[in-house]
């Protein structure tokens, strides 16, 4: 079982590394979106510091959503998805593998990039640390929830926009606690309670979403 | 005191009637749309029936 999981992760990561553009488009999108806000709002550092957590988190949300469409699409096109559906293994396990790989490819780079962007917004070191933690705990949840949307819209013409409509409302708790953690730190309240909420949500998502995604995949691949 | 006095909401008229009006509009328009939709479908099926005859 574990071996299967590792192989799936290894496969997707290898493919992503062989065609690096996929990783970079998500990352560049994130950087651009976050950098646009100061241009729209103005360069006052006080304002920027105030909006930084929200902006970075919304940017991460959009970037990880953008990458969702690709999650199952390639597998669907070349027939590997069929083989996964027919494998004598729990489909949720394979789904978890896919999601972990997806997070490593699209989520992790965001987490690594975020502190640099936080510097643009003049965030304190403490706040940056909490931001990394919140992204580290929050973005996997985004991938897990997003996988449901990706599976439901698999192969549809308007897939990309539709995913946004389906998935963004579900992202709200993650956004609230993620941005809230950083905000609470900058205002001196401490973000640990937010972080533990993010952790709890991640656990819930890890337990629940793979089943929903598997069910959705079976429906969509018919 | 007439009915109209009773229904005059004073300075709240805009808000009260704005709410009730839009609600009434929604709940009247929806059945009408449904009805016309149903008629359209029935017509289409009748046409199919005639064509296949």
């Amino acid at each position, binding site marked *: 079982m574990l071996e*299967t999981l590792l192989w799936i992760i290894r496969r997707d990561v*290898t493919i992503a590394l062989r065609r690096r553009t996929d990783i970079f488009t998500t990352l560049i999108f994130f950087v651009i979106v976050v950098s646009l806000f100061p241009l729209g709002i103005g360069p006052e550092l006080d304002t920027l510091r105030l909006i930084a957590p929200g902006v970075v988190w919304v940017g991460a949300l959009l970037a990880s959503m953008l990458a969702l469409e690709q999650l199952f699409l390639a597998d669907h096109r*070349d*027939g590997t998805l069929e083989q996964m559906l027919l494998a004598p293994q729990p489909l949720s396990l394979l789904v978890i593998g896919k999601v972990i790989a997806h997070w490593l490819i699209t989520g992790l780079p965001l987490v690594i990039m975020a502190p640099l962007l936080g510097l643009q917004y003049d965030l304190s070191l403490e706040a940056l640390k909490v931001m990394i933690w919140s992204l580290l705990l929050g973005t996997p949840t985004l991938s897990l929830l997003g996988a449901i949307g990706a599976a439901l819209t698999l192969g549809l013409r308007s897939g990309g926009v539709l995913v946004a409509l389906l998935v963004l409302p579900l992202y709200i708790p993650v956004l609230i606690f993620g941005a809230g953690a950083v905000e609470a730190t900058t205002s001196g309240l401490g973000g640990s309670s937010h972080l533990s909420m993010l952790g709890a949500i991640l656990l819930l998502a890890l337990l629940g979403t793979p089943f929903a995604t598997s069910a959705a995949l079976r429906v969509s691949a018919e | 005191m007439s009915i109209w006095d009773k229904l005059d909401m004073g300075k709240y008229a805009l808000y009260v009637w704005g709410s009730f009006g839009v609600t009434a509009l929604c709940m009247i328009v929806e059945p009408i749309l449904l009805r016309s939709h149903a008629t359209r479908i029935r017509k289409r099926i009748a046409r199919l029936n005639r064509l296949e005859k």
Partner: protein
Amino acid sequence: MRGDRRLFEHLDFDLESGQFMYLRGHNGSGKTTLLRTLAGLLRQEEGEILWDDTPIHRIRDSYHEELMYLGHLNALKGDLNAIENLRIDSAVRGQHLDEAAAWQLLTDIGLRGHEDLPTKYLSQGQKRRVALARLWINRSALWILDEPFSALDATSVDVLQAIIRQHLARGGMAIVTTHQEVDLTSGEVCCVVLGARDA
């Protein structure tokens, strides 16, 4: 049922150990749909598909243990080479295929020398051969093959036929769609022709 169209009804057949079934019919007659339904990818509107007298959707994992399905898509990752593809494919099926065995397999299907090439650079026939190489190491009881002979050259067709015969001799079952006339006289053959109504 595909979309709104009823493709087949009153279809009833049994397949037993060692038996081979041909599925024939012209384009759009529902061969692939039937195969996908039999594999459990599609759910039939009415009726039941039984494996050992149990409906397949109730014993999904153990049924899939006994099943090998190859659609007309090769299920290969173009960015990975043949060895990686085969090893990952086995892993997804829960079997371990070590590197040496994968090399041996590649030799068996006559693709030695192409092992480092991402499969997207292989020809159609070569890709098909990599996809079919799964059959060499597969011990599932039921093989469902959708157009396995397409894009193969004459020698490969012969090799594949031999493999299927071997499988039947072991007591396996196979359901195959094909356009070509294939000689698989060993094993009992039953033949279902779809779309006979309009033929």
